[in-house]
């Protein structure tokens, strides 16, 4: 009989069930996606927006979802508060499957999940105060309690003096602050950010990201954000998943994905942040050595897996000859030093291949880009 049961389990595996036994951390994940799929009825037949998404988001972390537009980020984040109903798979919040929730349960769930939006979505006919008060009002919270809570939150987001202003009178950053206050008014455990900084200028983006980081630390909130800007991920996320055409292509700690992206999508998304070869340099590099004295151009990548910053002295003496720094730099993400250096090595007796090997002792990835002209 035991055999029969075991066989049945094999034939119809409970998605995720065995996983939990193998990975105990999954059993206390705050949000879990198990085999999430979403299919829309497009004009030319069904379109798969999401396919087989399996993710576990831990309590208290800032989790980033990045992808190009149309990658399915927006659909995915909306399955958490069921603004979007997945076509297949399950969403577990605190180990509870939310698929069967009726309107009352769903409303209760949504009050524990705040959400902010790219275009803020504030009620234009309501003042700042009324906008923040609205979620409490519809929940039937008594007036005195409402007043205290709204005052407290407007203070938290730094909008004390704007109670009676209408959204149209505010700047983009101020509007998003109202959005954040509104999202936090029910003391949620999760905050969803849907491209929350994409409509803001860089400076305002920084101040909003700073506020989100502060909220995460002070209130212990789990923050799940979607964005198409790698800088946002770099600045505040702990872990990141890269989505492409509705599938997870890469995931891990931010420093890892940034230091050593495995897939083209991740590389493309990272491109604006990475130092690419300046045009002036490109014209000075040829693919083949034009003379035996031609300098060798090396690109060294530091993926952050080493505890310390690159030791240049040791590197240079290993390479020998005259080493020039053409381009590059190092940045710190989550305490890991990531970056790349472009070096030109001349007057050395060593061949390009030997130089590459030697440099490989100091950098995680080395390639011979070409030869100097």
């Amino acid at each position, binding site marked *: 009989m035991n055999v029969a049961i075991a066989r049945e389990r094999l034939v119809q595996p409970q998605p995720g069930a065995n996983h939990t036994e193998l990975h105990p951390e999954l059993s206390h994940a705050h949000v879990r996606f198990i085999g999430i799929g979403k299919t829309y009825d497009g004009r030319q037949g069904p379109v798969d927006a999401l396919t087989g998404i399996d993710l576990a988001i831990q309590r208290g972390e800032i989790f980033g979802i990045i992808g190009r537009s149309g990658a399915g980020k927006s659909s995915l984040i909306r399955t958490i508060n069921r*603004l979007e109903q997945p076509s297949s798979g399950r969403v577990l919040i605190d180990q509870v499957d939310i698929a069967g929730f009726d*309107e009352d349960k769903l409303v209760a769930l*949504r009050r524990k999940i705040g*959400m902010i939006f790219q275009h803020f*979505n504030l009620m*234009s*006919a309501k003042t700042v105060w009324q906008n923040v008060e609205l979620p409490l009002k519809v929940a039937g919270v008594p007036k005195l309690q409402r007043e205290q809570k709204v005052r407290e939150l407007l203070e938290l987001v730094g909008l004390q003096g704007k109670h009676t202003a209408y959204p149209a009178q505010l700047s983009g950053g101020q509007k998003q602050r109202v959005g954040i206050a*509104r999202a936090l*008014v029910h003391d949620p455990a999760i905050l969803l950010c849907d491209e929350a900084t994409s409509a803001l200028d860089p400076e305002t983006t920084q101040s909003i990201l700073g506020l989100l980081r502060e909220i995460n630390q002070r209130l212990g909130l789990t923050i799940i954000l979607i964005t198409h800007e790698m800088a946002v991920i770099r600045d505040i996320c702990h872990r990141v998943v890269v989505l492409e055409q509705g599938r997870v292509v890469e995931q891990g700690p931010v420093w890892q994905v940034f230091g050593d992206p495995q897939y083209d999508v991740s590389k493309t998304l990272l491109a604006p942040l990475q130092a690419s070869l300046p045009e002036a340099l490109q014209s000075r590099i040829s693919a083949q050595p034009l003379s035996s004295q031609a300098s060798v151009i090396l690109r060294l990548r530091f993926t952050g897996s080493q505890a310390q910053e690159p030791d240049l002295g040791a590197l240079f003496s290993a390479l020998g000859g005259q080493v020039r720094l053409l381009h590059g730099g190092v940045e710190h993400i989550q305490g890991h030093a990531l970056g790349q250096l472009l070096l030109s090595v001349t007057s050395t007796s060593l061949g390009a291949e030997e130089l590459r090997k030697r440099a490989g002792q100091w950098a995680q990835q080395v390639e011979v880009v070409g030869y100097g002209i």
Partner: protein
Amino acid sequence: MGFDRLWQGVIDTFLMVGVSSLIALVLGIPLAVILVTSGKGGIYEAPTLNKALGAFVNLFRSIPFLILMVALIPFTRLIVGTTYGVWAAVVPLTIAATPFFARIAEVSLREVDHGLIEAAQAMGCKRHHIIWHVLLPEALPGIVGGFTITLVTMINSSAMAGAIGAGGLGDIAYRYGYQRFDSQVMLTVIVLLVILVAVIQLGGDRLALALNKR
């Protein structure tokens, strides 16, 4: 043709337009809300109801007022007991004004950004909260503008009703101005109507502007 008669005409016009527009307001807003929320992607999606209601509204919207008024005579008699006078005119005026206003209000409600509805759902609003706290307040300036247009159109229609015995300024213009060639009365009525429409339009515009916080 004394001042009293003219004054009575103004009062009658006010009564006809006021009562029918007020009923249109009370009936038209719920009608517009049903039309919007039952539509595709609406919060109370119900395609059959939506189509049926839409067809019904279109039916009344497509009948010219003069014909509607005549066609409704038996119905009017059933409701108010007479087919003559101010109250008899209120029935067809209301039936013309309600779908007219409902369609305009529907457009305003439909223009409310879907993101706001999504935000309301995300913050834990039930569907009736969304109608009351989001759709109606956000569409209010547009609805006020639509009601102003309805009022002006009803003044127009009430004058037509006047011509077949409803009273009001239209009646005076028809009987004195047209049948007795009294161009002074005609001119006075025209001036009064122009003033009336101007005051309503200006008042409506001001109110809509004051309500619009965008």
